[in-house]
């Protein structure tokens, strides 16, 4: 089918830009997790990312918050971005036919001095009827299909997040402007991530801002996926069409594919994405060597080349990963039950001056922080 997005805020999605343009990204990111599930206002993460203002250029800012919808915590929260009026009824038709929509509303947003031209945002809290997904698929599988189907097929509509008790807020502007646009201070979460974009590789459009999200996965990324071509073809053949016109999107899908579909541990999934060099694998003891050879051989097309620092949020915690030669900065600070991870220490100090400890993680070695078990 043909997708026409002329005269819209969205550039042609058929242009997969990593082949055409270059990136010299200097994005900024920060995230934190309150392991004790204490929820804090989005104002906190806004303040932290604002400290990294000069790492971006006003062409993309975004946030992901977890624990923000306790009143609907067992329902999938779909954040929809529309830039065409008729897309709304098309999407709502799909939702009505395939899901039970428990609640829907406009995502409060207001034009500001900085942001006057913008799409329209709605959210839907939905359940997957048992009859819909059947025995062969999990509700998550079913949701992924619907979400990616909307992104691919409905002109002028994009699902920007689709997890339970979480949501992504993003757009074109500096992150502090996006926070004000969405009134982020009204939301309270126990995990927050934020991104300040400096796009030079792919278009600075609303859907191209970070985070990228599927189910409860959300990713913010500083860097460039030089291996985008091979990663895109790999993940596309596994049923994840890429529609956001930027390299980072593939990483979200790869994480979902490896962890949820192929049941890899987070550590193994991270070593697929940032594999040890062959010379280092050769120097490992036999058993370990065998395992890493298998991972590289099986998932070679999912390994990521190029400079990156990522934050992955999910309902259970927060993961950070660097490329294997550390071409992007990342520091981890700790204070009590809170773990902060950021491009710059100063943005952590901005919201928590007195840290218990701070260190820079090793290249290619993930930092994985889980929420404490929920008190029953």
């Amino acid at each position, binding site marked *: 089918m043909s997708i026409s997005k002329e005269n819209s805020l969205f550039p042609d999605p058929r242009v997969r830009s990593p082949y055409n343009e270059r990136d010299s990204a200097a994005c900024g990111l920060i995230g934190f997790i309150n392991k004790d599930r204490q929820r804090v206002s989005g104002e906190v993460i806004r303040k932290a990312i604002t400290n*990294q203002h000069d790492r971006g250029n006003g062409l993309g800012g975004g946030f992901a918050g977890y624990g923000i919808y306790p009143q609907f915590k067992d329902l999938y929260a779909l954040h929809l971005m529309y830039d065409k009026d008729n897309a709304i009824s098309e999407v709502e038709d799909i939702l009505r036919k395939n899901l039970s929509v428990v609640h829907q509303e406009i995502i409060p947003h207001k034009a500001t001095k900085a942001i006057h031209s913008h799409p329209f945002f709605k959210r839907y809290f939905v359940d997957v009827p048992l009859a819909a997904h059947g025995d062969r698929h999990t509700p998550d599988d079913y949701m992924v299909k619907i979400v990616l189907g909307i992104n691919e097929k409905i002109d002028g509509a994009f699902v920007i997040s689709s997890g339970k008790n979480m949501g992504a807020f993003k757009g074109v502007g500096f992150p502090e402007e996006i926070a004000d646009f969405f009134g982020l201070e009204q939301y309270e979460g126990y995990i927050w991530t934020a991104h300040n974009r400096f796009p030079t590789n792919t278009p600075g459009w609303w859907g191209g801002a970070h985070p990228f999200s599927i189910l409860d996965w959300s990713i913010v990324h500083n860097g460039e996926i030089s291996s985008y071509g091979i990663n895109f073809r790999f993940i596309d053949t596994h049923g994840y069409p890429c529609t956001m016109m930027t390299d980072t999107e593939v990483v979200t899908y790869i994480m979902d594919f490896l962890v949820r579909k192929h049941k890899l541990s987070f550590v193994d999934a991270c070593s697929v994405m940032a594999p040890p060099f062959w010379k280092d694998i050769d*120097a490992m003891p036999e058993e370990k060597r065998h395992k890493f050879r298998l991972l590289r051989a099986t998932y070679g097309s999912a390994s990521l080349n190029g400079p990156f620092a990522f934050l992955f949020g999910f309902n259970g915690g927060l993961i950070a990963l660097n490329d294997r030669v550390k071409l992007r900065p990342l520091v981890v600070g700790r204070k009590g039950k809170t773990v902060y991870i950021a491009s710059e220490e*100063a943005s952590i100090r901005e919201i928590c001056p007195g840290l218990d400890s701070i*260190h*820079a993680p090793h*290249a290619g070695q993930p930092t994985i922080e889980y929420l404490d078990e929920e008190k029953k």
Partner: protein
Amino acid sequence: MKLINAKGVYYKQLNEMIRAEIRSGTKEIKVTNVVGQRYIGGGLEDGDVKIHIEGVPGEDLAAFMDGPTLNVRNNAQDGVGNTMNSGKIIVHGMAGDVIGYGMRGGKIYIRDDVGYRVGIHMKGYLDKVPVMVIGGRAGDFFGEYMAGGIVVLLGATTNNSKPIVGDYCAAGMHGGTIYIREEVEDRFLGKEVKKFSLEKKDEKLLTPILNEFLSDLDISLDIFDFSRYIKLIPVSSRPYGRMYVY
């Protein structure tokens, strides 16, 4: 001593305030509540100026600096001393990646660990000999493409299970000297360097540098057992000199 409160001050204004103080003849400045402001000390030229920094300064601290002394009471971020020409930077904490990049003179003393690509492209010429001493440990690509100067890695202030230096240490190095206060396996070293024990002349060179490092940071460390150190120097000063000859 003049006091500048950096709280809520954007980096451009902050650096303008510091420059205005120096223009008006102030020789000692204390900047408090610093939180990520970039380029502090950048391009400053007056060798008599001392700037005390409280809080974490931002990227490219003292880039192209030519003379002053910066005393950072906390950690520093990436790009400290980028292409600095002379002066001194003292950091009472750790620092990030790419410290002393292309540095061509002056001194950098960091108390704790540093990140990746520290001391890369350092160079020296005639009386210009940049010196960097790191009290803790360093990541990969330490001293990569180094062309001159002296770098000392002590591994003495941070006590953890990490190796003293990462992979690709001194890769492509073709000038200068790296001293490391611990044995490093050959497989982590660049092919352009060889490992040596220290000689008397090395001890003579290092002793005053180490004393100054300890005194500036106001710490005492047991770091004068030179039999523990190794020295890395390039085996050819112009490894690619004949590259285009054939």
